[in-house]
């Protein structure tokens, strides 16, 4: 009997805005001028928030902090497509997603400042708390999507994670469950190419991360993670597909971690500076400014005005954060469980004294 081929695969890559700001008009999403400018503001807001967080950490006003520098487009572009009724399961480096979805900036400072109250998602927002144990929230997203499917709710469930997470068992278990059950999930990987000091080439032998979805029975696409419109377009399509019963999609946003893993890390120990400089030329905000300028939506004055507005918003968030009185010791018991045991109640008394 002759050999037969049972399966082949192909992985597409989406790019819309060229480095010089020109764009393929057939691919530019149908966003109004105001919406395009709103995306720009969110990019600036994310970068401003991030820079301020680094400064606060240096001054001891927040604790260890993971920078999102360079990843603004991957975060803002994708989050901008998410609807209020969708559910979002972030990892720990998604501040641009949080800000785009309207999560209070002062609460982000609170969390990174060591105050758990920062992690209390406001009512009405379907954003699960930050996940520190890498990749373990991927099955959560699958479970929520399974529940939504059982309930007949036409929503999408989004999980964000990095390149390192694609090596974790829970990534595979969660993807497999989503694939075999056709769950309404959109998995977004911010492939910033470094897991602390481990480069992508040591993380996986796969040519792309996107192709890992193929094994689980659904599509994976790679997008230029520094191209905010490409990220937006791919995410919007995947979300609509999920809401309409089309099953999961995996979006790999190829980007770059411009800063250290966290403020406790020194990437200079393991990364060549030339590599970082190469990616500085591909800065997502710079590229988008060129795109907007070509459409008459941006100039230096406008940029300065928006930057000033972002600084004001972050100033206010810092002020709000530092105006919050520290938690009371007894508060560590407040939500430990639904009803404290007698022993826990005694311990709470001891802690209060």
């Amino acid at each position: 009997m002759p050999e037969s081929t049972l399966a082949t695969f192909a992985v597409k890559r989406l790019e819309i805005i060229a480095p010089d700001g020109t764009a393929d008009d057939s691919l530019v999403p149908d966003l109004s001028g105001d919406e395009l400018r709103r995306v720009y503001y969110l990019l600036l807001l994310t970068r401003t928030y991030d820079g301020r967080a680094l400064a606060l950490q240096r001054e001891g006003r927040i604790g260890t902090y993971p920078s999102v520098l360079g990843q603004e487009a991957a975060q803002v572009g994708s989050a901008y497509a998410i609807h209020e009724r969708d559910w979002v399961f972030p990892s720990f480096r998604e501040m641009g997603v949080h800000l785009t979805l309207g999560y209070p900036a002062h609460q982000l400072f609170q969390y990174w400042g060591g105050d758990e109250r920062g992690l209390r998602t406001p009512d009405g927002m379907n954003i699960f708390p930050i996940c520190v144990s890498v990749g373990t929230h991927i099955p959560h997203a699958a479970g929520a999507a399974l529940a939504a499917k059982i309930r007949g709710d036409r929503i999408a469930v989004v999980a964000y994670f990095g390149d390192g997470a694609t090596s974790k068992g829970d990534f595979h278990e969660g993807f497999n469950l989503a694939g075999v059950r056709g769950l309404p999930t959109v998995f977004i990987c911010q492939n910033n190419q470094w897991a602390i000091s481990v480069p992508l080439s040591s993380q996986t032998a796969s040519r792309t991360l996107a192709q890992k979805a193929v094994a689980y029975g659904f599509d994976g696409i790679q997008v230029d993670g520094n191209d905010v419109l490409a990220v937006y377009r791919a995410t919007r399509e995947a979300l609509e597909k999920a809401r309409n019963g089309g099953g999961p999609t995996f979006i790999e946003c190829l980007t770059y971690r411009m800063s250290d893993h966290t403020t406790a890390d020194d990437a200079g120990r393991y990364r060549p500076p030339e590599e970082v400089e190469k990616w500085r030329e591909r800065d997502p905000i710079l590229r988008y400014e060129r795109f907007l300028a070509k459409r008459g939506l941006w100039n230096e004055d406008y940029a300065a005005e928006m930057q000033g507005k972002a600084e004001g918003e972050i100033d206010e968030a810092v002020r709000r954060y530092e105006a919050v009185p520290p938690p009371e010791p007894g508060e560590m018991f407040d939500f430990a469980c639904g009803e404290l045991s007698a022993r826990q109640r005694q311990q709470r008394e001891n802690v209060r004294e």
Partner: protein
Amino acid sequence: MPQLNMVQAINLALREEMARDDRVVILGEDVGRDGGVFRVTEGLFDQFGPERVVDTPLAESAIVGAAVGMAAYGLRPVAEIQFMGFIYPAMDQLFAHAARIRTRSRGRFTAPLVVRTPYGAGIKAPELHEESTEALFCQMPGVKVVVPSGPANAKGLLTAAIRDPDPVLFLEPTRLYRMIKEEVPEGEYTLPLGKARIARPGSAVTVVAWGSMLQRVMKAVEGYDAEVIDPMTLSPFDWETLLNSVRKTGRLVIVHEAPLTGGLGAEIAATVAEEAILHLRGPVIRVAGPDVPVPLAKLIDHYLPSPERIRAALDEVLQY
């Protein structure tokens, strides 16, 4: 009232709760079409359909992780881990997430889920099918640990566990699945979690045991003036019932099949030493499994606390 064994009692609890509350969803390996490898979920797939009884892929971490997501979304998942020896991949999900989502989110999200699993030794099964590592789970705040000792309390406790607003690990003593038949109430019947029962009143010595060891202890104490306490919930433990008993008898023997070192008996002994030492006439004695991995069938009877070892402990402590 029907006479049911533990498998039937648990099946009845699940069936009634699923009928009463459409948020209750079962998930796990082989729980659907096959009705579970011990037949605990038999008939539920036919009655409630594949969206209420979900046959999952072979992935324990994802089973519990998905349950976390389902619970966050508003369902009441009852996840099955096929044997306690296979729960270890899911400990990350239980400890890093289920146990702490309420506190991390300041109450905004909770995890009202149950993880059921066959527990304990004595069915001559292969490796990892006879584990009793309950103490590891009792150490994690935010997870409740419940062990029924008979068909009736299995139904009452599981119903309460499903209705509990927080994660509950429900350990089903495999050896007891079909060993005992007794009257089990149909319809609305719950037992409170965190409350022990006095299985047998007495005044000369207190004996604490759970799971299939409780049954073994009830036989071993015949002829002794022993008060036997069945905690039913290991975490949170009912200290009041235990301490009242020890203050009355002045003697304590703890029996658990789990390995001695770091077992829950250590926590019980420490608590008694802190809060009732002046009432003790002699040492607290623990009759437990040795500190080795559970052996296979040919040696299991030398591993488990035997009636002889239990009576030897009673004899020793009664000398004081």
